[in-house]
């Protein structure tokens, strides 16, 4: 909402308060002023000029030579506007003048003729072209005849005004009009409000002779009033009216429409003027639209209506969409002579629904949606009728033809007055409290302990005691509220899960990974491009109305977007990448959601390039499956889960290398996977060899692990024995380790694989794996014989179960 400082000054005396100070005060009282716009800022040297003579330029087709009287001198100005003529009062930028954008006016010669200045259009003076009246849109601006030659022209254009841009939130709709803003400013400044007192001179002939009103949908239109004004002459509005509308951001059209817009801005009451003769009947019928009914609105668009929409009809067809926009057929035009003026109350929700459905937001709909003051509906009708009669020369017929009724009594709110201090933490006296309501012009009194406030209908946002507390708080000023701390102590801490999750993140970072945070929304194709933990059985949740296909479904796994991030880096020639993400995925088996999807927290990582760059110590080592697996092993170790984790070759996961992928099982249940991205997908995504993993971090963190217990340190030394085994290629390290573990007995404490060899010195189809086994008895020193016995047993088992032989 744009509030003109000069216009506001008509209702509240703003003496001594600059526009900037006012903006600051309004902001501090709760309505944010986005900006203070001074339309004339930077403009210099603009005066009123009189075009004494005007003749065509001798050497140019479209130029005119004008002798312009500037009061103290007469200058020749070459002007290209088609609407320039002798006898006009115009706006002249003198030589040396500055126009918006820093344009400087200089003495010039145009086709051999001297031009000492410029006759200006409104656009050249910085007025937004959207608000320039049609009649001067293509030419210079022509002032009224009473403009004084030689005067500074800015006041004639209201360009010496300042416009405050108010950011209206749903609770400040009462400031979406000048009078509401005036009440607010009066309360802030503790000054009086001067309200217009419309007086309509009515003829003896009742309006009801010309029109009848019937409301068939009273829930949508509690009140509908109509006035008739006859004998009007449609013409451009006077400058004062145009200027005010321009300041408010409304384009002047003609005196009738301008008056309805003016009153809308002044009272916040939307009005509509129909051309009575084009209305199509003498009956106004307000009803719900019929399915498929159409109307062409003022903007020339044909709109199809639905039974939810409320329409004004002439008894047959819609002539306006209630509270949103009028129809083109009954629009006021230059030939209009009789006006049917509508002043009605429409239901906020109904207007909102229609306006949202049609995507049509207007000054009227915005106000109806947020609730208007029913007390003003007739005042506004009177104000508009009087102004039309005054400006367009018509006669107002007697009375308002009406249907329905409205209640506009003040709302009484009662509350213990001490609650104000209890909620705000202040120590206000009864007088302090009452003073605030006096400034707001709410009737208030304190009876015993009870505060009784009568809230006027112009403030529908104030309806409960808390609203009154807010009014007191904001006008008293939150700066005066002390800063205290709650009386009651309490303890706060992270949950065990949250603590562990942080530890997982720190672990990943310590392992060289950067944390990524990706979008949860992706494409269905991407969501299905690579496996997720559960592998199958879920439908990506799809948005009803995505903004773009790129962000249309919720992710099933973290990998698709993480790989996208990898690609982003490769495209920028960053080749060594280690990223992890921890975040939620969304799982459902339903094609159309009836319940919330299951949300699971996942940990995913992607590695490509080299683990660390080549340096002088050693060559770089490219990442591989084992690099990713090693990171996870460290994580499982940190979580105390190593013994319960198992890896199982997984050859069928979508988008994963069938020979280089493992499922990760916790207590026998798949909770994730690790592996290399399938070469085909790598190629599609333009990736280098990339290894990834994704695990269900919830399963990891919620796994029951025993609390940490100290174990006595062994007092006897451990004994290590190394064995190198030769086995068939197909035998896995995991199988060997399992046999060793199973046959090792209680003395075997640790198994570590330290070498894998295949090639020379070994028969084809064979490989050698070397393990270091650690034996320990916490109670005594082991003898070589005891160890040898266990060792032999292990070797025997290995031979029997896996055909492993000691490497010679």
């Amino acid at each position, binding site marked *: 909402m744009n509030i003109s400082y000069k216009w506001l000054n008509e209702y509240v005396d703003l003496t001594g308060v600059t526009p900037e100070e006012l903006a600051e005060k309004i902001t501090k009282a709760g309505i944010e002023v986005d900006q203070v716009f001074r339309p004339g800022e930077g403009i210099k040297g603009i005066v009123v000029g009189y075009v004494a003579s005007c003749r065509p330029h001798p050497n140019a087709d479209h130029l005119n030579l004008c002798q312009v009287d500037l009061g103290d001198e007469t200058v020749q100005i070459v002007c290209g506007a088609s609407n320039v003529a002798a006898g006009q009062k115009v706006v002249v930028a003198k030589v040396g003048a500055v126009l918006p954008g820093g344009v400087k006016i200089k003495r010039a010669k145009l086709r051999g003729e001297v031009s000492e200045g410029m006759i200006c259009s409104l656009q050249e003076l910085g007025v937004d072209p959207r608000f320039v009246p049609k009649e001067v849109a293509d030419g210079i601006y022509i002032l009224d005849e009473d403009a004084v030659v030689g005067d500074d022209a800015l006041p004639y254009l209201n360009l010496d005004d300042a416009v405050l841009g108010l950011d209206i939130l749903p609770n400040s709709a009462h400031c979406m009009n000048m009078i509401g803003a005036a009440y607010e400013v009066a309360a802030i400044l503790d000054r009086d409000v001067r309200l217009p007192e419309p007086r309509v001179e009515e003829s003896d002939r009742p309006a009801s002779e010309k029109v009848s009103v019937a409301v068939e949908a009273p829930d949508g239109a509690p009140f509908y009033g109509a006035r008739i004004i006859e004998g009007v002459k449609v013409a451009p509005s006077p400058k004062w009216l145009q200027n005010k509308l321009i300041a408010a951001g409304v384009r002047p059209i003609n005196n009738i429409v301008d008056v309805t817009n003016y009153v809308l801005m002044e009272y916040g009451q939307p009005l509509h003027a129909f051309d009575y003769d084009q209305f199509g009947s003498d009956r106004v019928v307000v009803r719900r639209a019929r399915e498929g009914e159409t109307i062409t609105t003022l903007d020339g668009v044909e709109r199809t209506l639905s039974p939810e929409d409320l329409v004004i009809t002439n008894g047959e067809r819609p002539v306006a969409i209630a509270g949103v926009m009028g129809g083109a057929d009954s629009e006021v035009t230059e030939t209009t002579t009789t006006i049917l003026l509508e002043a009605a109350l429409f239901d906020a929700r109904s207007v909102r629904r229609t306006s949202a459905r049609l995507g049509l937001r207007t000054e009227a709909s915005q106000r109806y949606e947020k609730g208007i003051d029913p007390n003003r509906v007739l005042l506004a009708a009177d104000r508009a009728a009087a102004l039309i009669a005054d400006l367009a020369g018509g006669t107002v017929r007697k009375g308002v033809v009406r249907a329905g009724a409205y209640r506009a009594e003040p709302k009484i709110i009662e509350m213990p007055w001490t609650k104000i201090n209890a909620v705000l*933490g202040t120590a206000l006296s009864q007088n302090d409290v009452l003073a605030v309501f006096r400034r707001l012009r709410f009737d208030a009194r304190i009876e015993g302990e009870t505060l009784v406030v009568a809230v006027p209908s112009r403030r529908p946002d104030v309806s409960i005691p808390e609203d009154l507390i807010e009014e007191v708080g904001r006008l008293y000023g*939150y700066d005066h509220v002390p800063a205290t*701390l709650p009386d009651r102590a309490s303890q706060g801490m992270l949950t065990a899960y949250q603590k562990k999750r942080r530890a997982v993140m720190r672990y990943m*970072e310590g392992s060289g990974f*950067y944390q990524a945070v990706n979008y949860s929304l992706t494409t269905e194709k991407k969501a299905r491009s690579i496996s997720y933990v559960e592998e199958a059985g879920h439908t990506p949740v799809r948005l009803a109305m*995505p903004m773009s296909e790129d962000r249309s479904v919720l992710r099933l796994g973290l990998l698709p977007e993480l790989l996208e991030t990898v690609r982003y880096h490769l495209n920028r020639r960053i080749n060594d990448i280690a*990223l992890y993400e921890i975040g939620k995925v*969304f799982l459902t088996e339903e094609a159309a959601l009836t319940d919330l999807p299951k949300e699971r927290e996942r940990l995913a990582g992607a590695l490509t390039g080299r683990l660390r760059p080549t340096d002088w110590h050693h060559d770089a080592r490219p990442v591989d499956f084992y690099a990713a697996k090693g990171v996870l092993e460290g994580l499982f170790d940190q979580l105390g889960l190593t013994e319960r984790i198992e890896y199982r070759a997984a050859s069928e996961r979508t988008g994963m290398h069938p020979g280089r992928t493992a499922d990760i099982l916790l207590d026998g249940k798949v909770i994730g996977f690790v592996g290399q991205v399938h070469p085909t997908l790598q190629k599609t995504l333009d990736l280098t060899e990339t290894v990834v993993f994704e695990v269900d971090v919830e399963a990891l963190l919620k796994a029951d692990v025993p609390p940490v217990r100290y174990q006595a340190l062994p007092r006897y030394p451990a004994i290590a024995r190394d064995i190198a085994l030769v086995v068939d290629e197909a035998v896995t390290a995991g199988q060997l380790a399992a046999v060793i573990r199973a046959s090792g007995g209680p003395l075997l404490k640790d198994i570590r694989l330290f070498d894998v060899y295949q090639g020379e010195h070994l028969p084809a189809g064979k490989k050698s794996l070397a393990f270091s086994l650690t034996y320990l008895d916490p109670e005594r020193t082991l003898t070589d014989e005891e160890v040898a016995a266990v060792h032999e047993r292990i070797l025997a088992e290995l031979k029997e179960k896996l055909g492993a032989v000691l490497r010679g």
Partner: protein
Amino acid sequence: MFAITGRMRRRLEARLWLTAGNSLRSGHPNAEPALRCTGAARYPVRVNGFRPLTRVVPREPRPLLGWGFSFYTSLLEGGRMTLRDTLEALKNEALEAVAACGDIKDLQALRVKYLGKKGPITEVLRGMGKLPKEERPIIGQLANDVRAAIQAAIEEKQKALEEREIQEKLASETIDVTLPGRTQPKGNRHPLTAVIEEIEDLFIGLGFSVAEGPEVEKDYYNFEALNIPKDHPARDMQDSFYITEDILLRTHTSPVQARTMEAHQGKGPVKIICPGKVYRRDTDDATHSHQFMQIEGLYVDRNVRLSDLKGILTIFAKKMFGEDRKIRLRPSFFPFTEPSVEMDISCFHCGGDGCRVCKQTGWIEILGAGMVHPNVLAMSGFDPEVYTGFAFGMGPERIAMLKYGIDDIRHFYTNDQRFLQQFKRA
């Protein structure tokens, strides 16, 4: 090979094991005792007041000087010099030899030569029997003095040579300390995580717990339980990603508050902060993102006041943005709080004088807050006559952008490693 008497050797070894066992063992576990002693030579160990190594010498030392011990004895035998002169000459010769010696091995040889069992002094002493009785103690004393002088000179020399050896070794071991070290590659957390964790920790210190909830939410919890009924104009403020008519991506983390209050079944206190991802229909640009983070806080209890909110937020502002920060509450509107406020902090960049960061106002808008609307309390099972509460909400992106001077919100979701690694210290 090594002349050392059996008794001495046993005693010496026993002592060496005790005193320098590790260093010896680490040398070579199967080494012969003599070799161990060589190892021990690097570590000065005293056995019975003597340096044991003075006894560990080659049986046949290399001849260092032209004359052997027999020279002195022959002098004595010839009687051409007094014993006193002999000792004197011996001392001078030995001291000269020691002074000229430039090698530890040579020095060992000198020690054996002059102080050894078959050395000249021993021989002199052995010859004392031929002296008159009264001279014996005098010559004996003199011989001891000579021996002590030579011994002292050798020891001093030994020290000097060892010192030189160490210096030479150190010099040969010198490296280029400016070469880069061996590092372990390290990543770091996302700047938004850094901000969120900092805020979490701050509020945990103030007695809040961290509550979480679903990102796909029911319309009821996202709007209705927060006093935003269908058709309410407030819904204009946040265009949402709906999935069905009743399910949507949450537009704020407030539904977690509603859920948490509901779970408390009308019994306070509820004191939580709710961090998490939220989603709104915004076109991504430098200042908008369809997905972003939010942290909301809620404190519901008996007698919670707006002044408490101000107190808590003052602490937050000072801890997060510096102790000099001042805060300012401005009235505002949110459907779920009444009264509602917005909090500005004095600009941390210019201190409040006005600059580009604060758009010349001296203040920076940080968060929205207010007293929980009675409808919200009632809908979540709390009696608004008994309980009051405050709530606040802020955007980690905005805080991170202000704190670190980041100019484009999209950086947070592009995850460029060159961007991420700038926040190692964060």
